[in-house]
């Protein structure tokens, strides 16, 4: 695909963007919290629910076989999207958080013992901190942290010194939800692998915005969520290297994950089945497959180019406002702009923007250690997607100027 995005045409796929919200044009700058679903995704789920639904992996009915086929096709679409070697290495979860908990419990627990260390980056979302803290507390292990500099870039030189012979796992976000920083996952993975440490990557903010090639990155696990990538909530995926998935014990037990059950012994399905107990979110999974089709139809090169253009435009416009400071100035940055304004709390900014029909996130972004690192309680964050326009950015800037006017 070449040429710029036809954003006007794309926006027609999102009724929420074209329907007035409380009498105002809705300016949605909160895709890092949750993306919006385009019409083809919603329609695909509706068609499934109305005409194709039954349980999957059950029975001999044609209806069930076809539902299973659609469900497994979505797995293949996601495999292709992230260039995993095999669709079997894509495990369905409720989202990134559940995927990371699965890794902590099933992969982490047998490996981590008293005195061991888990190394995490300073810019992790709580979803890639708390599961490891739970494990560390249970096992008597400790968490160590890869520091970042004032621009919001990880200090790579610190990593070799932080990896010891007690380091069992390195956890890393691909793209920081709070700062927008795109981390050099491939380079960090190579550093960790040189010392025999497996790498778990939170890809929730990366998958919607850039082309992810898991065979190139070479990380051991990679987790992401449907609702951040134009798909529905309640579905996400965990990629794992085959040798790990093979060796890991099941995490939850139940139907769907077994080959046979007797009172004496239960034999589990091979992966991914052994990690997918119970009836899955079938409509959401098929919807996620449709969102992959949609994003690939637009093209990741064009998505990235469009979002980068908006990022540059918005950064320049916001930085021109006296008293406004942007946190996160990484050289490689996704279209996430976190900012603070002198003497004005982000929640007050958020409320005034809300009144203008502008949806942003005001808060700690589930990344309190990042806020602490920069010495702020919270920030206001605008996150841009392929359906946003310069007009949206202009509306943001005008509303921020209004905040300044009100607060004097």
């Amino acid at each position, binding site marked *: 695909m070449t040429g710029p995005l036809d954003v006007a045409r794309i926006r027609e796929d999102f009724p929420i963007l074209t329907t007035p919200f409380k009498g105002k044009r809705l300016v949605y700058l909160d895709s890092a919290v949750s993306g919006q679903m385009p019409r083809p995704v919603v329609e695909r789920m509706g068609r499934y629910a109305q005409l194709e639904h039954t349980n999957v992996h059950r029975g001999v009915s044609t209806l069930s076989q076809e539902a299973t086929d659609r469900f497994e096709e979505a797995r293949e679409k996601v495999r292709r999207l992230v260039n995993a070697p095999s669709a079997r290495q894509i495990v369905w979860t409720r989202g990134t958080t559940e995927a990371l908990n699965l890794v902590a419990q099933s992969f982490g627990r047998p490996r981590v013992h008293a005195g061991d260390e888990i190394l995490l980056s300073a810019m992790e979302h709580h979803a890639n901190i708390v599961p490891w803290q739970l494990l560390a507390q249970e096992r008597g292990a400790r968490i160590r942290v890869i520091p970042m500099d004032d621009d919001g870039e990880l200090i790579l030189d610190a990593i070799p010194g932080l990896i010891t012979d007690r380091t069992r796992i390195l956890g890393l976000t691909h793209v920081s939800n709070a700062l927008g920083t795109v981390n050099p996952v491939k380079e960090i993975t190579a550093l960790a692998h040189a010392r025999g440490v497996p790498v778990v990557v939170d890809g929730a903010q990366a998958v919607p915005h850039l082309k992810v090639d898991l065979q190139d990155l070479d990380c051991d696990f990679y987790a992401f969520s449907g609702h951040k990538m134009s798909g529905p909530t309640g579905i996400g995926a965990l990629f794992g290297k085959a040798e790990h998935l093979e060796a890991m014990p099941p995490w939850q037990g139940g139907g769907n994950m077994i080959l046979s059950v007797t009172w004496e012994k239960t034999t589990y399905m091979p992966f991914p089945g052994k990690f997918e107990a119970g009836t899955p979110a079938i409509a959401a999974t098929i919807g996620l497959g449709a969102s992959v089709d949609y994003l690939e139809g637009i093209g990741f090169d064009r998505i990235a180019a469009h979002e980068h253009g908006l990022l540059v435009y918005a950064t320049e416009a916001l930085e021109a406002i006296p008293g406004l400071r942007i946190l996160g100035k990484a050289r490689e940055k996704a279209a996430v702009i976190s900012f603070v304004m002198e003497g004005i709390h982000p929640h007050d900014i958020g*409320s005034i923007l809300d009144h203008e029909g502008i949806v942003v996130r005001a808060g700690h972004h589930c990344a309190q250690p990042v806020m602490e690192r920069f010495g702020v*309680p919270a920030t206001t964050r605008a996150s841009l997607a392929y359906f946003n326009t310069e007009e949206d950015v202009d509306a943001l800037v005008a509303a921020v100027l209004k905040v300044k006017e009100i*607060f004097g």
Partner: protein
Amino acid sequence: MTDPRELYQQVILEHNKKPRNFGRLEPCTHRADGHNPLCGDRLELTLWVKDGVVEDVKFQGQGCAIDVASASLMTTAIKGKPLAEVERLGEQFRAMVRGELDPGRQPHDLGKLSMFQGVKDLPVRVKCAVLPWATLHSALQGEAIASTE
């Protein structure tokens, strides 16, 4: 939706900029920490209560303008008041920001505190306005921590 200008009135903005009774009483007879887990607002309230009267009160912490101005105005409103009156003010304040008491139509003792009535139209901000009062309640009940969750 109320225009934010109706909420962010001069008095609120001014108390946010220059909060009254800011700091910490040492020693104190009552204290509590309040926090709003949703947004990370925190405040510490310390009181000196003698013979059932709030003789002195101070707060410190960080929060949005609504939170800080509410805390500041609360301290000025309760200083020198008997506990029964303080408790009644708290009840009226909560009722007002929840839309259950209209200070324009119903009797109340809220005085300047009534300027927070606009918060009722911003449901996500009600907790910010109420946090100082929830913390006060905890302090007087002898609980160390208050949360608006």
